[in-house]
């Protein structure tokens, strides 16, 4: 194995890619250079930038035919973040005002975004609730107004359009603020619902534990079953809520 692949494997592990995936990726890429006869660095670009592209979380999308170093420079600042369903559209437009363009929604529900370092411009966003078979019709309806799809999360379809479509050259941002420090933006409403779920879980466990404290074995067993069922039901409800109102990290 060449130094390039050794270093790439270490970088992918550092980025949290599972060991099994790292091993198969390295084997896949080694196979590529074996078939093409190319030098790894020439084929894949500088190793750190390539690891970013494969790490899945950096937004270094690089689908422009260039090698990794050029790609990183072109991608500008990258940032992945998320918000719950009560806050996402507002946050998208807030960060869009700061020049952040969403490239996609990854499978964890993160908005993978980048900002042009030289000529950042404003972006506008909107969210539509669409069944999969209706996506095309919605995209076609919105396209004449400059909207293009930028990600999907379950039944939510996200669209973006450059600010230039509505305000012209004024969409360019003279001095953009620094990248936001956080990655999670949850609304008070979401946190309240989450708190109610936790409270329900605690109350149900307390109630059932009290019921099982009689010392009777049958009642104790029933209490155990009921506790498990109660906690499971609340956990299931919380998970469903999480899915619907979105995204963890």
């Amino acid at each position, binding site marked *: 194995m060449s130094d390039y692949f050794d270093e790439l494997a270490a970088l992918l592990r550092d980025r949290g890619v599972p060991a099994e995936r790292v091993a198969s990726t390295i084997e896949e890429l080694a196979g590529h250079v*074996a078939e*093409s006869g190319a030098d790894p660095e020439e084929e894949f670009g500088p190793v750190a930038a390539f690891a970013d592209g494969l790490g899945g979380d950096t937004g270094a999308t*690089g689908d422009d*035919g*260039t090698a*990794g170093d050029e*790609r990183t420079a072109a991608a500008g600042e990258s940032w992945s973040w998320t918000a719950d369903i009560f806050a996402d559209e507002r946050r998208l437009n807030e960060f869009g005002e700061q020049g952040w363009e969403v490239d996609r929604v990854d499978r964890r529900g993160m908005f993978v975004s980048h900002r042009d370092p030289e000529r950042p411009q404003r972006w506008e966003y909107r969210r539509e609730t669409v069944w999969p078979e209706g996506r095309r019709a919605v995209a076609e309806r919105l396209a004449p107004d400059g909207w293009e799809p930028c990600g999907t999360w379950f039944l939510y379809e996200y669209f973006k359009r450059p600010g230039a479509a509505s305000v012209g050259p004024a969409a360019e941002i003279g001095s953009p603020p620094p990248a936001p420090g956080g990655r999670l933006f949850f609304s008070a409403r979401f946190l309240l619902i989450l708190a109610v779920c936790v409270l329900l879980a605690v109350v149900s466990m307390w109630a059932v534990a009290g019921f099982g404290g009689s010392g009777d074995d049958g009642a104790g067993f029933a209490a155990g079953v009921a506790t498990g069922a109660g906690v499971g039901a609340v956990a299931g409800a919380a998970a469903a809520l999480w899915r619907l109102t979105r995204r963890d990290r």
Partner: protein
Amino acid sequence: MSTDRRASWLKGVLDLLVLASLTEDESYGYEISKTLAEAGLGQIKGGTLYPVLNRLEEAGLLAAEFRVTERGPGRRYYRLTERGRETLTEQSGLWLAFDESVRAMLTKGAAG
């Protein structure tokens, strides 16, 4: 034609081209790059292709399976998922509509 301009064009459509290269059968990275090159799209470097494959897999548009081969290194085979096929149909339609507008404008410009 400048390389920069061609790279910009590819930027907007490479993910669709990768999806389109998998409509008939599954394939692996190097073979996909050869298919794209043979279609006249130029050589897509591995440094560009694999992050795109990774991203499409993450988005659930491709499914991948790593297979060990008897001789030589293993390969990860990619195939279109149902969602990938839907996305390809939907996005190809939008791209072709855009292409039609560009073509009409450029044809008019060249004739004038």
